[in-house]
């Protein structure tokens, strides 16, 4: 196998040009940043997803990549098919692409140098565990010990067990418990995680839009493909809750708002640890019926104004047993404590949205010029969930039909005194000072509040 045959000391016709491993490791890890290394590893997971679900327009629904990165430990795991024994033995850990390697269709990472240089960059010791259809096995490498031997370049495969394994069981876990000290320092920086999350959302947006969920340090990354109308007349809800459930911590992020009118997309979307458990739900499960009350709307008759409603709930927990999903992880289990908590929150989130949609519906018979909500909503941009600010409840406000008449007021005053007042009123510019002094005077003289 990969053994560099040493130069025969007695052969005076040869010079030794074989690399030392230390030099090699140094070269391949020199120009890579930790965040790039991690992104490369996620690329490898996505390649796994592509091998598992080939085709022009694959759905990655149900596939998940989990990244945990902190001072003590780095772990990336996926349920994307695992690395096959054959690929592991011949290609995956080879430095450079073997000539006869057949790459994954549309692959992003490809087994070139990405995974190895990421591992060497970050780890003093790492292990890779793969469960694929036919086998499961582990590769554990103590980097220093491996580098000390310049002759043998092989990694050892351990715990090799024959399959078969079902698709649900397959996946790859890469674990580093002995981090390079500099890398550990980097991972511990408070800004590192959020920045990495932003990078992942951008780099992996296509895979995420196809349903791949990526979780970073226990929280599901919000896909940029999910969007709500924001501004003009309506401001969606975004609220985060952290609840103790059965002794573990449950993080819930809820978004409720409106988007384009589409019956098939309207309703609640519930994600548990990144997996979409419920899609466009308008049933009792999400409390829909207890919100749409009276007037016979409990009957199957559909009300068009609700086709704009979109709600997203992301539930994450390190302890997946507290999540409100059923045993097959395909639906919500109403008996769970987390569900009983969630349902109240969903109802609370839906009600202001329904209030808005009813008001919007009320504009149907108005003249076009008076449809301020409809107009405003049409103008409002669709904004990715990540860019939506926190707000306790959906808020809406018809904009003034036409701005009231405005007047200019200009005056000069002593700079010294103006600066004193500017500081006192917390104004940053003279125009702002002008507005503040007017408002102050108006409120005190006219007493309209």
């Amino acid at each position, binding site marked *: 196998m990969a053994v560099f045959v040493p130069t025969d000391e007695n052969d005076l016709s040869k010079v030794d040009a074989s690399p030392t491993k230390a030099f090699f490791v140094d070269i391949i890890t020199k120009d890579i940043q930790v965040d790039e290394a991690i992104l490369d590893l996620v690329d490898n997971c996505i390649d796994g997803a592509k091998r598992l679900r080939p085709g022009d327009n694959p759905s990655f629904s149900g596939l998940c990549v989990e990244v945990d990165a902190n001072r003590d430990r780095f772990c990336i795991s996926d349920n994307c098919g695992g690395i096959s024994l054959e690929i592991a033995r011949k290609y995956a850990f080879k430095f450079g692409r073997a000539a006869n390697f057949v790459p994954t269709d549309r692959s992003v990472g490809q087994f070139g140098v990405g995974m190895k240089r990421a591992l060497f960059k970050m780890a003093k010791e790492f292990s890779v565990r793969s469960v694929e259809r036919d086998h499961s096995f582990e590769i554990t490498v103590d980097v220093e010990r491996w580098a000390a031997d310049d002759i043998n370049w092989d990694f050892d495969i351990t715990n090799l067990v024959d399959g078969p394994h079902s698709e649900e069981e397959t996946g790859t876990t890469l674990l580093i418990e002995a981090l390079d000290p500099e890398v550990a320092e980097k991972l511990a920086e408070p800004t590192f995680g959020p920045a990495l999350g932003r990078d992942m959302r951008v780099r992996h947006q296509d895979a995420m839009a196809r349903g791949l969920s990526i979780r970073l340090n226990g929280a599901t990354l919000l896909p940029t493909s999910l969007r709500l109308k924001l501004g003009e007349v309506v401001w969606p*809800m975004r609220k985060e809750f952290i*609840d*103790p*459930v*059965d*002794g573990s911590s*449950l993080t819930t992020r809820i978004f409720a708002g409106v988007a384009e009118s589409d019956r098939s997309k309207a309703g609640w979307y519930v994600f548990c640890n990144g997996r979409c458990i419920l899609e466009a739900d308008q049933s009792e499960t999400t409390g829909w019926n*207890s*919100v749409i*009350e*009276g007037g*016979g709307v*409990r009957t199957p008759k559909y009300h068009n104004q609700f086709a704009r409603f979109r709600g997203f709930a992301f539930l994450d927990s390190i302890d997946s047993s*507290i999540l409100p999903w059923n045993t097959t992880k395909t639906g919500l289990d109403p008996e769970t*404590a*987390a569900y*009983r*908590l969630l*349902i*109240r*929150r969903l*109802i*609370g*989130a839906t*009600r*202001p949205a*329904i*209030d*808005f949609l009813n*008001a919007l519906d009320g504009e149907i018979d108005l003249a076009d010029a008076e449809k301020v909500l409809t107009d405003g909503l049409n103008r409002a941009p669709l904004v990715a969930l990540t860019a939506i600010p926190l*707000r*306790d*409840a*959906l*808020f809406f*406000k*018809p904009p003034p039909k036409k701005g009231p008449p405005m007047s200019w007021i200009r005056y000069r005053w002593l700079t010294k005194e103006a600066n004193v007042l500017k500081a006192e009123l917390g104004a940053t510019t003279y125009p702002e000072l002008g507005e503040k002094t007017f408002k102050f005077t108006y409120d005190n003289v006219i007493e*309209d*509040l």
Partner: protein
Amino acid sequence: MVGTAGQIDYRLRPHKHAERTMLVDAFRRLRFAPIESYRYVGFGALAFVDFKMVHRALAIQDMVSIEDTRDPLEQRRFRRNKPIGNIDLRFGNSAAVLPSIDFRRHSIVWLDYDNALSRSMTNDLETIAVDAASGTFVAVTVTAAAPRNGPQGAKDRLARYAEEFPDHVGGMKPIDIENGLQHAKFIRRTLDDLLKKAVQDADAGKSDALDRRDVYQVCFFRYKDGAAMMTVAWVIVARRDATIFADCQFNALHFYRPNDESFDIRMPLVTPYEIRELERRLPDVAGPSTLLWIPQAERAAFEEMHRYMPSFGNVEAI
């Protein structure tokens, strides 16, 4: 809420006045935090009577009044009528405003509706319940008249209830709500059950049993100024605070009602002269032969209600 404010002058509703005064007596008993640190959340309407009372009687500073109007002119009228600067006016449906209020701090919430029980009211109640701090006092007022037009009206009303509260209507028949008391009992039972369920659901995942909350009903009023009304009030208490709740001694209030037996507010029909005569003989006004000229029923009502009687005069109370 502008609508009802225009219908009846609040100052001419003696039973409503008594109810407010009794509720303030109940609020006063809260021992979970200094009462002046509580927040009061209500529907102030144009008169803000309850707000003035809680501010004056309990020194509560933090007050939120919810008004369901989006009309700028109406909003202006509310702002102009706001009697105390501390009142934070929030315009919008209670469904939209309540989720934006943080009920994890001690609050007294009075959802003083003036229409019949509906799902949106119980949804409001449930919204408060999810996060309500231990020691939260919550009251709900709704109209509770027996449905008009006899059996036919009761049938229609029951059909609506069945749609909105299928679990609570069960095997009920129209006759079960034809009578005002029966109707009120159904409403109390429904509110009580949904509130308790909301609290239990919210607490289902709490592993420390002492963090779980119980709901204690403390008031169940029925009264009638024009339309028949009813109010149910509860205190939400974490188990670790059970002894604090006991210390509040709500049961010492003569109008304390923990179950479906209502306290019916009825003002004595007595003249100002009779009031003075009765007051001078307190506490014993039911027995003395010197008062026999005042009908027994009025004396009994006086004994119960004299502290809560409004004083009317031609002087504008500010």
